[in-house]
């Protein structure tokens, strides 16, 4: 099996586990941990693709909320320093990527001029 085939297969497994988690979470779990979701059903199919995509995080958050381990002060502490640092890296990375890619462009004039091939001559017997 090639690496590409393996990745595609793993993606399929990820999705099927996600579907199972979404079914259980959106029918049983969400109402238990969020009062705003009780009696609200129309929004659930809308969030189902998100559950399928990030099901490990969903299971982790569900466990924290079910067991009362959620730390409320963290909810009010944004990671405010991350933006600045991330964009200092981006300020280098984005121009670097763009300029490097432009330098890698091939000049059309450097290419060998195309030659029109003539058909093979018929051989007379």
């Amino acid at each position, binding site marked *: 099996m*090639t*690496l*590409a*085939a393996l*990745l*595609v297969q793993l*993606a399929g497994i990820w999705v099927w586990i996600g579907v199972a988690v979404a079914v259980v979470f959106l029918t049983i779990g*969400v109402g238990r*941990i*969020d*009062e*705003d*979701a*009780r*009696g*609200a059903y*129309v*929004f659930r199919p*809308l*969030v189902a*693709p*998100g559950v399928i*995509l*990030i099901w490990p*995080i*969903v299971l982790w*958050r569900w466990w924290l*909320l079910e067991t009362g381990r*959620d730390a*409320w*002060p*963290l*909810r*009010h*502490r*944004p*990671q*405010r320093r*991350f*933006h*600045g640092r*991330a*964009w*200092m890296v*981006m*300020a280098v*990375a*984005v*121009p670097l*990527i*763009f300029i*490097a*890619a*432009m330098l*890698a*462009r*091939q000049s*059309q004039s450097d290419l060998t001029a195309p030659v029109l091939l003539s058909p093979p001559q018929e051989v007379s017997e």
Partner: protein
Amino acid sequence: MSVKYIPVQWNPNKWVYDAIMVVAVALFLWIFIFIAPDVLNHNRAINPQIRNARAFGACAFFMLTIILMIGPLARLDTRFLPLLYNRRHFGVMAFFIALTHAFFVLDWYFSFTPINTYEALLSSNTSVTRLRGFPFEWLGLFALLVMGVMALTSHDFWLKFLTPRVWKALHFLVYPAYAALVGHVALGVLQDAQSPVMIASFGAAAGVVVLLHVAVALKERGGGGDAAAEAGEPGWEQVCQADDVREGFGHIGILASGERVAVFRQDGKLSAISNACAHQNGPLGEGRIIDCLVTCPWHGFQYDVTTGRSPAPFTEKVPTYDLKLVDGAVFVRSEANPPGTYVEPVPA
């Protein structure tokens, strides 16, 4: 907000926002596909399928570029705040435009492969050690995946369930995704494009995004508020002078822990609450008091300044701080009260 969840919370402002966005997207695609193919000419002639793929791809790139510009623009100039208000719809639409691009690409370049289409996408080019001919498709796939995560976790349920902290951490993936998208475009379509218009517009767009974010980072290096000073009494910190706080407005102070406190004056009395909105951690101290409620400048979430609670039927809460005045200086207790705790306002 904290009422029963519904699929999409519409209001007249969002209708107008979305209508303008849809018209702009349609106009962009129409110009790209029908009006300007000569301006956006490619070295080799392209067929309609490839042009459609490039039109949707370019549209997604510029949409994500604008999305990333809205945040810093709103920080630099409050007149851009209305653009921030409904940015999530912008992001969702950008994802679907990018997805359409991906389907056009798969349907043309990988349609006739004898192996699985996605397998072909991943295995057709594996020249990762070379810049020229780098598998730019992988970069696009990563960016699409991140845009998908962002779009599919944009409902208010996700903010409350994951908490703004985790939700934002997840959405920070948009930064590497944008870098990947720049690589996807530059190592992909721009390798072939001979039009200086295309190269200049993509390069300039990415450059403006970077410059805006760096400008904001430099502006906020100072903290965006007044650093607190220790008071004589342990556990209290001075955040500002009472005169610094105008009636109906807030003033942001930064505690030694890095926490930001928003001090508000209402009816001549001072109160202090957390500066981070419970919705998306918007800067409450940059908002003002409307109808006796502190109003977040980002999305309009409101709180009673004495309790940190949203008015019924909403249930959002932010922490409050004990506050006292000493010779005209405003001191708050270093430790916040649990969200929703009533604190008696102090006349000043």
